[in-house]
């Protein structure tokens, strides 16, 4: 029996690792309930009027995340009213990345005046489920009936370093497409970013 339990544990772990790729465009995404920087919890079900969600895995310490903070705020301010609020999730384990601890998230959210929830994925389950591998990593979800469908995965835009030189706004183009009833194209982009810092126990 013990052996079976262990085997099952290994199987679960293996499944998690195998699905490290996470969601693909078109997949049904799961809702979550995670702790926000204000101490309350946030779930996507708290937004009955939203048309969808801009879920962004991001963090404090990563220079790419920092480079995008102002753009993320601008996207939230523009699209929240149109039905697509930003939901930011810090995927990192704070024992591996101390700068991404819950208390430091609170500080950063205040400093920058985040207009959106900044949630901590304490046990990294949502990070694994969604398949966030780097920060920032965007998952654009559309509400379809009772389901949340992944419509776009990837980068925020084309140029992390020089926002003024951006000519391809991948994320906002994708949201605009959904608002017009179209399919985002591209639905998937890659970007350079910081690796998600997984807790040691999950890796070893």
């Amino acid at each position, binding site marked *: 029996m013990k052996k079976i339990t262990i085997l099952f544990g290994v199987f679960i772990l293996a499944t998690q690792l195998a699905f490290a790729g996470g969601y693909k465009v078109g997949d049904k995404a799961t809702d979550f309930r995670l702790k926000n920087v204000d101490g309350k919890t946030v779930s996507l079900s708290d937004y009955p009027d939203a048309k969808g969600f801009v879920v962004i895995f991001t963090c404090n310490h990563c220079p790419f995340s920092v480079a995008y903070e102002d753009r993320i705020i601008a996207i939230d301010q523009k699209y929240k009213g149109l039905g697509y609020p930003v939901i930011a999730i810090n995927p990192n384990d704070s024992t591996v990345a101390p700068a991404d601890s819950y208390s430091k998230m609170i500080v950063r959210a205040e400093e920058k005046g985040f207009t959106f929830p900044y949630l901590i994925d304490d046990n990294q389950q949502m990070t694994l489920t969604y398949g966030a591998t780097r920060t920032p990593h965007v998952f654009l979800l559309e509400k379809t009936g009772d389901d949340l469908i992944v419509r776009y995965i990837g980068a925020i835009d084309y140029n992390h370093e020089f926002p003024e030189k951006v000519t391809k706004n991948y994320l906002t183009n994708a949201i605009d497409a959904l608002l017009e009833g179209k399919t985002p194209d591209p639905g998937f982009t890659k970007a*350079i970013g*910081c690796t998600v810092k997984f807790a040691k126990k999950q890796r070893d």
Partner: protein
Amino acid sequence: MSVILLLTFLFPAVLSLNGQEVPVYSFAQFEQLLQKRNDTTYVLNFWATWCVPCVKELPDFEKAGVHFNNKKFRLVLVSLDFKSQINSSLIPFLKAKKIRSGVILLSEPDPNSWIDKVNRNWTGSIPMTIIYNRDFYFFREGSMSFSELENILTKNIIP
């Protein structure tokens, strides 16, 4: 011809160590390095000063660089640091850590357009390492140790 190209591409990187300059490559320039499938074994390590696991594994790459120094082998540390921070972050880092390997900065917007051209399996996170020569190709998204590098290089460097 290919030797001249090789020199053009790799010597600025090597010379940069003392000159404290880091050559900046566009992807088009960088791609020529990727296409060199000859009897030299290339180790391209993608890293950045802000990437903790990258910085942690650098000494292992430096050690491999010294270890295989007299072989047909080239180690290039491909920095993805921000171009605007070459003088404020990258060069001070290289000096402080006494990095002796060749360093280039890859600066090209729209990573989505070139990540797949480096390797289709690369999601875009670093550290990432590719090792290749005429007969061999290796890809790793994640950290590598000296012993892993030594093992792979010992088996695959073309004598």
